[in-house]
C-alpha cells in the first residue's frame, strides 16, 4: 500500500504503513485485534480482503472501523489513541471492566503494540523511557500478558542509532517472554525458542546492515526473502 512517510519516519526500508500492512497479513479471519497507540493504529487502514477483522479498543469499543472524515467526528467516540473512529455494523460498546475482561480472559487474538525495546527472549519494554519517573502503561500490561499473540511494530533503531532489538531489555519490561513477531523498517523478525530470527528483509536493506544495527544474535537463513508486500 502506501509508501508515504510522515515527518518522524526513518528514511530507510519500510514505511510505517508497509510495516503494518505486513503484520496485518498474519491476522486470521474472524480475529479480534487490539491496536496500541502510535504506529500500530495504521493496521486499521489495511486491506483485509475476504477476512473479517473485529477491532477492539481498550475503552470498550468492539468493532470500530476507519477514522472519521474531518468535520464528521462523533465527539463521543474515540479509539485507544483518542482518535475519532467510526463504528462498523454490528459494533458494540462495553464499559472498561468488561473491555478488560475481554482482554484478561484471553479473547483478544492479537495485540499490536509499539515498543522501545524487544529482547531476543520475547520480553519487551514500552511503558517507561530511560531515566523517567513514573510511566505510561495504559492497557499495555494487561494486553501483553493476556492476548493470544503479541506483535510489535517499531523503528529498527532509536533516533540516536541505538538498537531496539536487544539481548535483554535495559529499561523496565512491560511483560516477559510474550512477543511473537516484530516488524521494523528493516524487516520481519520472529521470536523462536532458539532466539530471534530474521524472517524477511526490507527492500534496499542488506543482511549486514540488519546485523550491524541489531543488539542481539539473529538466526539468519541462507536466503532471506524480501518482506511480502500488500497488493
Amino acid at each position, binding site marked *: 500500500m502506501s509508501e508515504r512517510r510522515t515527518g518522524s519516519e526513518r528514511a530507510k526500508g519500510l514505511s510505517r504503513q508497509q510495516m503494518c500492512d505486513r503484520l496485518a497479513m498474519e491476522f486470521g479471519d474472524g480475529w479480534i485485534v487490539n491496536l496500541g497507540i502510535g504506529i500500530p493504529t495504521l493496521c486499521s487502514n489495511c486491506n483485509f480482503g475476504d477476512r473479517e477483522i473485529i477491532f477492539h479498543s481498550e475503552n470498550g469499543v468492539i468493532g470500530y472501523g476507519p477514522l472519521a472524515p474531518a468535520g464528521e467526528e462523533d*465527539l463521543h467516540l474515540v479509539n485507544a489513541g483518542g482518535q475519532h473512529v467510526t463504528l462498523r455494523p454490528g459494533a458494540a*460498546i462495553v464499559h472498561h471492566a468488561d473491555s478488560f475482561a475481554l482482554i484478561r480472559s484471553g479473547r483478544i487474538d492479537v495485540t499490536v503494540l509499539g515498543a522501545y525495546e524487544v529482547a531476543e527472549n520475547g520480553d519487551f519494554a514500552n511503558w*517507561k523511557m530511560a531515566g523517567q519517573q*513514573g510511566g505510561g502503561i495504559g492497557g499495555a*500490561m*494487561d494486553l501483553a500478558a*493476556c492476548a493470544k499473540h503479541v506483535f510489535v511494530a517499531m523503528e529498527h533503531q532509536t533516533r540516536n542509532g541505538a538498537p531496539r532489538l536487544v539481548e535483554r531489555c535495559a529499561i523496565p*519490561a512491560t511483560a516477559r517472554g510474550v512477543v511473537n513477531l516484530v516488524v521494523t523498517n528493516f524487516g520481519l523478525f520472529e521470536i523462536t525458542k532458539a532466539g530471534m530470527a530474521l524472517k524477511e528483509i526490507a527492500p534496499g536493506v542488506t543482511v549486514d546492515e540488519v546485523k550491524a544495527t541489531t543488539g542481539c544474535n539473529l538466526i539468519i537463513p541462507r536466503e532471506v526473502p524480501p518482506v511480502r508486500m500488500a497488493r
Partner: protein
Amino acid sequence: MGARSKIFPSFAEAVRDIPDGATIGFGGFAVVGMPINLYGAVAAQGAKGLTCVSNSTRGGATLPADAPDMGQMIQNGQVKKVVCAFTAPTRASQRLILSEYVAKGLIEAELTPQGTLAERMRAAGAGIPAFYTPAAVGTELAEGRETRVFNGREYLLELALPLDYAMIRAHQADAAGNLRFRRSQRNFNPIMAMAARVTIVEVEEDILPVGAIDPDDVHTAGVFVHRLVKIPPPPAGWWPQRPGSVAR
C-alpha cells in the same frame, strides 16, 4: 421518588460537602465522558489532601485549552496522591503538570495498569476486597508484592479501590438517577459509580422524568447515583470541542 431530589441546581452545590482527604474518582477516557465541569467545581471548592483516581491526569485534543482538568487541581495544591494508568508523558515532547510535582516529592503517583485500575474499582463496587491478575507479573510493578500460581500461571494480588466520591459524565439521566452513556463515553464511568459512596453526575441532555428511560436500557442503575447536575450550554458549561477547532 421520595422527598430528597437528586437534581442539584449547580455544580458548586453538588460538590459542597467534599472534605479534605477524600478519595475521588474522575471518569472519562481521552476527554470522552470526562467530567470537565466537576473538575472545575472541585478545583473551585478547594478541598485539599485529595487522592484522585483516573485513567490519566490530562485531557486531550478535544478539551478546550482553558478547560479545567486534574492538572488545575494539582497546581492548586489540592492533590496528595494520584492513582492512574499514565503518570508520565508518553512522548518525549509532551509536558505533564503532574511530573513536576512528583519530581519535587509533593505528590505520590501510584501507577496501575489500566485493566487493573478498572477491575480494582469494579471489585470495590462488587464487595470483593482483592483479586489476582496476570497483568504486570514479572515487571517492576510486581516487585516485593504477593503473587500466587493458579493452574501453572503466576498472578499478582491487587486490592479493591473504593472511592468516597465518583465524578462522572453521562448523556442521559432520569430524575431517579438512572443513566445512559453514549458511545465510548461509558468507559470508567459506570464502574466508578458503583465503587463510590457518593456519585455525582454531570448530564448532557435535560434530566428526564422518572421512568422516561426504559428499565432495560439503563446502563447505570439510579441506586448507584446520588446527585445530578444538567450541564448548561456553553459558555456557562464545559463541552468537548471539535478537533482542530479554536478554543471558545
